[in-house]
């Protein structure tokens, strides 16, 4: 019997799984925006299974499981993307740079956007030269955390209603 089990280990497992799936080419075509919510629902289901469906899920637990699933997916997703970037020495941001430069020129806001364009140029340069950029890591982690946590929490709440309805309906 494992004592003091990390409560959110199911979120760790499904978050890792979701991060792996996001790297598989073509899988996003199939799962699209439902991958992260599905991972959060699965994490809640696994937690319930471990605890033998003893008690219904509370709103707080559902939100936290979704949050942790999002955090783990973002962490591993960023890690995998950085590994691929390191190996290939290219990234979407390098391909996007010309488009961004055109977009900024269209805006005609002069020096105001110069800093962000310079930042992107530096990132692109570092990636093509070293395969790694600290700025890119921060950007990826931030955007992944933001979106995945949001979708994870939505999934957690959907999971709460689905699992409670299916397994704890008589308790209410």
């Amino acid at each position, binding site marked *: 019997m494992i004592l003091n089990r990390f409560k959110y280990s199911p979120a760790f497992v499904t978050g890792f799984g979701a991060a792996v799936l996001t790297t598989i080419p073509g899988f996003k*075509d199939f799962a699209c925006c439902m*991958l992260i919510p599905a991972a959060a629902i699965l994490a809640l289901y696994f937690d319930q299974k471990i605890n033998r469906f003893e008690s219904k899920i509370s709103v707080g637990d559902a939100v936290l499981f979704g949050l942790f699933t999002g955090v783990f997916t973002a962490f591993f997703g960023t890690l995998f993307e950085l590994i691929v970037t390191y190996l290939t020495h290219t990234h*979407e941001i390098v391909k996007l740079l010309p488009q961004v430069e055109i977009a900024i020129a269209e805006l005609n806001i002069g020096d105001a956007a110069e800093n962000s364009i310079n930042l992107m140029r530096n990132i692109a340069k570092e990636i093509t030269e070293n395969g790694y950029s600290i700025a890119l890591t921060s950007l990826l982690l931030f955007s992944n955390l933001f979106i995945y946590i949001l979708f994870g929490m939505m999934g957690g709440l959907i999971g709460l209603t*689905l699992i409670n*309805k299916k397994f704890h309906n008589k308790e209410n």
Partner: protein
Amino acid sequence: MSMILASTVRNKYINFYAVRFFFFAAAVLLNLLVYYDLFFDNSFFHLLVENLFGTVCHQQDEKLLSFAGITTIVCSRCSGIYTGFLISTIYSLIAYKKKITGSLKIVYFASLPMLLDVISVQVGLYYYSSTSAFITGFLFGFFLYLFFIENLQHYMGNDIEQI
């Protein structure tokens, strides 16, 4: 005693109406971003939003929804889900005192057309259609939210005051 009970019930209604309004606001924000080109004209922020949603949608050019000279940020199916979510939040605000069925069957039936559409396209029964992807996604988003909000209210029960 009955006055306290009535007051509690009324407060629960008011509080849960706020919860529903929160989801409505979230749906509006989400749809403003999804239909970004319809409301805003800034290509730099378009790229930012596109990049942000790139983490949760494949965004293949041929699968984006195009209408009125604009294209959506996410694919037709995702656009359908988000639009269904928005319409559903509006419906749940208008009809918040009505008892809507919270049966699991509604989720199964709503997801069935979408699953069939995805599988049919994947196995090559027919080619991807933006219209069918949007409609099936819309149905799923609409009924999933109705099921969700109805059951959330039910399961929160007495904890409603803690929100």
